[in-house]
């Protein structure tokens, strides 16, 4: 509801894209470095929590509805499972990595050992990381948002 002081708000405006790009970096490089869908998702969700704490939950709810968040969450989960089913379709194995070694998107075969991290590897893993990331971001953000809203509203029920 109430927002914090102007100094905090300005710094939030600067830090929000910074945190977000960092979280997306962690998600995108999940198959190369530590991190992945969950960790990056938690970081991005924290960035959104930053918005909640500085601007108040009403302000955020005026911009994005909780229903849309849960729709996105379902979409993330569905796309994850769909990738698994695509593995079943293309390589006859559930969760099959049908993109690995295909030289298409993310299809390069990785080089073993201490090399420069090649982004274009991993097959379906980066895609799955993104699906998980969408789910985690929206899920955690929805949790924080709803709890923030509920904690400062006196007359809610259900």
């Amino acid at each position, binding site marked *: 509801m*109430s927002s*914090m*002081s102007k100094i*905090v708000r300005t*710094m939030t405006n600067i*830090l929000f894209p910074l945190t977000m790009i960092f979280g997306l970096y962690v998600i995108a490089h999940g198959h190369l470095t530590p991190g992945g869908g969950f960790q990056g998702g938690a970081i991005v969700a924290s960035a959104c929590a930053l918005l909640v704490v500085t601007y108040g939950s009403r302000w955020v709810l005026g911009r994005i509805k909780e229903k849309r968040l849960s729709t996105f969450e379902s979409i993330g989960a569905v796309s994850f499972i769909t990738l698994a089913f695509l593995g079943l379709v293309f390589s006859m194995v559930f969760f099959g990595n049908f993109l690995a070694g295909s030289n298409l998107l993310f299809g390069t075969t990785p080089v073993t050992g201490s090399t420069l991290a090649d982004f274009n590897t991993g097959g379906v893993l980066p895609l799955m990381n993104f699906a998980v990331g969408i789910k985690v971001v929206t899920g955690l953000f929805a949790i924080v948002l709803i709890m923030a809203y509920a904690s400062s509203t006196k007359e809610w029920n259900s």
Partner: protein
Amino acid sequence: MIFDYLIYVFLGIGLFFNVLAGVGLLRFPDVYTRLHAGTKCTTFGSIFLIGSVILIGLKLWWEKDTNGSVLALHSALALVAILLTNPVGAHAIARAAHRSGVKPVRAIADHLAESPPLQTGEKTDKKQQPQEEGGK
């Protein structure tokens, strides 16, 4: 050789100020003065500690070690993050402390307590930010 001593000096300064922060936290009488110690000293100390890492990274970069230079770059980003967040956090804590009713100990003046209650910036903010932005 000089370089090594420089790093030791950096580390020494950094550690000294970090310890000073801890001591200050224990010795000062109230929240605001503790914030002085806890914010300034740790920031300054971490500048020097991370600075030493950056120095080593620069040296490694000179020696064509990619890993080391990337290390220094990331450390610099961590330093930037600290520099951005630390003072704002201190400001938020100080404001919270004042609003939750902690009086500064031995204060000879308190203009904030005398002034009328301050607005939070919600209304002005809404004027600047019309509602149509959400969906884009």
